[in-house]
């Protein structure tokens, strides 16, 4: 297909007003990606897991740094800022590193699914196979945390044409895979009701550090600039700001202090709703989803 057909058009200046709880201007959420990369996974025909021949000691151990060292550094910084996380979870971490899971669960963090491993990709899967992956996430998160799985970010951002239809049909409420907006919005799926919650690649430390190669202090500046504008616009209608993180990147000592300074700046403002992905999706569903759907404009068929 040429157009995934996942949403109608809804221009930024012609929308129903979003009112966040307590009159907040910005719904702010932080999404640490807690991941497990396998040292020698089976090969997906469309993508190799590692850049170097097996064993890719350097890249494997770099990711492992996140769980061994970076996570707790990030966790403590977020605790100091009174910020709960919404964990984008490779669910096999529940088995590999239950200590990480219980620290998050005890702090009241949300868990949503980022697939089973970050080295198992969805593309090429049949519908039945993809259902098994989603069911594995639902079951594993419930078994280890007691939480109902509500959110989805596809593992390593890999998809089939069915992915969003399946997560909606299987009872999930929101997805983080769409980057078309600064506010939540309805996703057009075959069955069920699905909301897109803004996640952001621009604020994602993988893009910032591994693709754009910026310095830690510059990253803090980027985060503050993003927040300042969304905060100003949120006076008229609520906006969403997400910081997607990876403990192996942001949790490096030389990056931690600048990040914490930016986090403290954001969470120190009045009128910021310190939320989780689930809370944002639910509030939007309850108060704005129908109005947004009704105001949306059908997309014309391109020649």
């Amino acid at each position, binding site marked *: 297909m040429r157009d995934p057909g996942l949403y109608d058009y809804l221009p930024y200046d012609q929308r129903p007003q979003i009112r966040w709880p307590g009159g907040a201007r910005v719904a702010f959420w932080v999404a640490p990606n807690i991941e497990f990369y396998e040292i020698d996974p089976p090969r997906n025909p469309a993508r190799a897991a590692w850049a*170097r*021949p*097996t064993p890719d000691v350097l890249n494997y151990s770099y990711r492992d740094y996140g769980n*061994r060292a970076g996570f707790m550094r990030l966790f403590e910084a977020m605790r100091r800022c009174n910020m709960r996380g919404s964990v984008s979870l490779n669910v096999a971490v529940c088995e590999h590193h239950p200590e990480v899971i219980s620290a998050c669960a005890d702090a009241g963090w949300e868990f949503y699914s980022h697939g089973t491993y970050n080295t198992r990709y969805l593309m*090429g899967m049949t519908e039945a196979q993809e259902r098994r992956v989603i069911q594995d996430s639902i079951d594993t998160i419930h078994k280890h945390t007691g939480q109902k799985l509500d959110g989805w970010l596809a593992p390593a951002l890999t998809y089939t044409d069915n992915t969003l239809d399946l997560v909606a049909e299987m009872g999930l409420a929101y997805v983080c895979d769409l980057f078309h907006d600064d506010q939540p919005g309805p996703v057009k799926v075959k069955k069920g009701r699905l909301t897109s919650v803004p996640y952001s690649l621009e604020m994602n430390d993988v893009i910032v550090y591994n693709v754009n190669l910026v310095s830690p202090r510059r990253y803090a500046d980027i985060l503050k600039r993003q927040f300042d504008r969304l905060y100003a616009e949120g006076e008229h209608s609520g906006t969403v700001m997400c910081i997607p993180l990876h403990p192996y990147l942001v949790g490096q000592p030389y990056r931690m202090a600048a990040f914490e300074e930016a986090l403290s700046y954001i969470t120190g403002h009045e009128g910021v709703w310190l939320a989780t992905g689930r809370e944002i999706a639910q509030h939007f569903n309850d108060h704005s989803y129908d109005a947004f759907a009704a105001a949306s404009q059908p997309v014309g068929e391109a020649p």
Partner: protein
Amino acid sequence: MTIPDDYLQYAQRRYGMDHDRYDWSMLSDRKPVTWPNGARVALWVVPALEWFPLDMQGKPFKPPGAMQTAYPDLRHYTLRDYGNRVGIFRIMQALERHGIRASVAVNAAVAIRYPSLLKACVARHWEVIANGQDMDNLHHGGLARETEKALVANTLQTLRAASGQPVRGWLSPAKSESAATLDLLREAGVDYVCDWVNDDMPYPMRAAGGTLHAMPHPVDIDDYTILVQNHHTEDDFRDQLCDQFDVLYRESQTQGGRVMAISLHPWVIGQPYRIRALEEALAHVMGHAGVWAATGSEILDAWTAAQPS
């Protein structure tokens, strides 16, 4: 494109790691370590003396710093050699100001080609650690075990003879290993390896001949990554080193001793316009009480002595 059903089976899905080389543990959960004289941060400076052959093959991949243009790539060949002729001496001077002894990671080819350079390191009581044969002899899964074994043996023999030191540490060129590298290193008497970037403290690894240790030797905050790959300024590099130290120093107050490793490439940081970044960062670090500048072997021995028996 179809995916076989066993793609959804996970044989290693279990507690801990998906391999047996080391145990899973969180840095924050471990027993705090105190360094000699109550120091909080062990500063470990690791310059690398590298030789990139002009006709390098870059197999199975090009290491950072490899030749780039059509043969003969004189510009990159000579710029890498700049580090061995000029840059390293600026690093020596910067370290001497604070009485810091480095662990210098040496390609065996450098010891053979420039014996006086190795002598200059030894005369400064630096620790010599092995950095493989040269930058075109990578350790990787495609090597026959006997080939790799000979590579390890020849490298260590050259460096041990040239330095008169036991050569207890190993940094693989480009931090690349085969599945057998750790076993071969342990059998050859290597005590620690610098290829794994998953921790801020030493930790034990399992090898066929016994235990060896991973030392924390980062890749993403070294001079090559920050200055050459990321194109950050010299002041940015200094700030990142200072920020690294400050966070580790603060952490050491509640979690026990930490290691701050600084990985350097003399052809990068040894340029006249860059060296001051290192000097300023070292002045910041060494200006704090409770900083212990040490070699890798000294840090590992102190760490080992502090472990519960």
